[in-house]
């Protein structure tokens, strides 16, 4: 039986083994770039938290009888509260949607600010069971606006459409 020490790979290949391996690092980098592209280009609509009012019934994922979340700005003077039911209109890109909601929306809910309503479209009216207020990334000091925009309309026109 042969028991001579098995010849191992020569010194050259052992030196190679010590060298940093670049191929996997390049693969990681490429995969990350690919990941960025997939996530930012193709998956946007799928991870989006809500549909805008103008996309309801139009865009993939915002159509049909499925449960959706709709974002829009509460139209001024559209809020009617009767016997525990709130009704108001949402507007976005010149499209409006009537929303019916059981109860009193929480948060800083008021007219002229963007909100997200959960529910489904029933006979052209959005039947919602949950309202979330989506506040913007604009912060305006209260004292200052008292002079500049005392009228409610001014506050409405300030908000992005």
């Amino acid at each position, binding site marked *: 039986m042969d028991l001579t020490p098995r010849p191992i790979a020569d010194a050259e290949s052992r030196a190679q083994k010590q060298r940093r391996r670049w191929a996997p690092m390049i693969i990681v980098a490429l995969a990350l770039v690919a990941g960025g592209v997939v996530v930012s280009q193709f998956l946007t609509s799928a991870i989006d938290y809500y549909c805008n009012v103008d996309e309801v019934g139009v865009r*993939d994922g915002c*159509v049909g*009888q499925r449960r959706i979340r709709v974002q829009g700005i509460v139209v001024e003077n559209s809020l009617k509260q009767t016997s525990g039911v709130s009704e108001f209109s949402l507007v976005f890109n010149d499209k409006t949607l009537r929303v019916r909601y059981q109860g009193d929306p929480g948060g800083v809910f008021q007219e002229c600010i963007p909100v997200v309503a959960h529910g489904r479209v029933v006979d052209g009216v959005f039947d919602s069971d949950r309202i979330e207020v989506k506040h913007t990334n604009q912060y305006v000091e209260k004292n200052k606006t008292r002079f500049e925009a005392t009228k409610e309309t001014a506050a409405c026109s300030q908000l992005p459409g």
Partner: protein
Amino acid sequence: MTSRMQTVRRVSLAVVRKDLRIEWSSKVLLNQVAPFSLVIMIMFAFALDNEGILQRVAPGLVWLATLFSMLVIVQRSFAVETADGALDALRVAGTEPLGIFIGKSLALMVQLLALELMLLAIALVLYAVEPTAMGYAETFATMLIATIGLGFVGTLYGGLGAGARGRETLLPLLLLPAVAPVLIGATRATEAAFGSGGAQSSEGWPWIGLLAVFAGVFGAVGALAFGPMIEE
């Protein structure tokens, strides 16, 4: 370089054959893991027995059951290595770590795929899901690519705790957040394939792209890091 590649191929083939042989002779997947995942699926069916809900969440349940079962398979995959000091022996033998990584990943992938096919069949029966032909194609593509990613990430994190105390509790903590993209991606792709909740099948392909990216990242990271990870 070619000689190293040959070594890697030789070692990975030896490891994958060894792992599958162990599974074949011990039948842990068949006798323990498969019933475990079956129990998960049935429990969900009991708990969520409400019109519509089950069909809507079926894709998520398939993948959740897969992930839980995967934890068991990964534990087992490294328990056989540490039972009689075989991992130590592999390490001291200077066995190419990349070969071990690829071999163990492949074995894990084969077992996962078998399990997923079973879960899919159960979902079709129990949850009354009826995909189209296109839906089936999408489902199988999802399974294949998600499984490649799961195989890599499972082997990487399984090797991390191998031999350390407390690894049984550590593995879920590390592995479950890491596989969250797979859970989300595979679930959404399968939802699209099943048409759950009114989803269209075209919505699924970008998610499969995400799964492919995940597999690429963890394949490459594992190739780099598995050796240092199992080192003392």
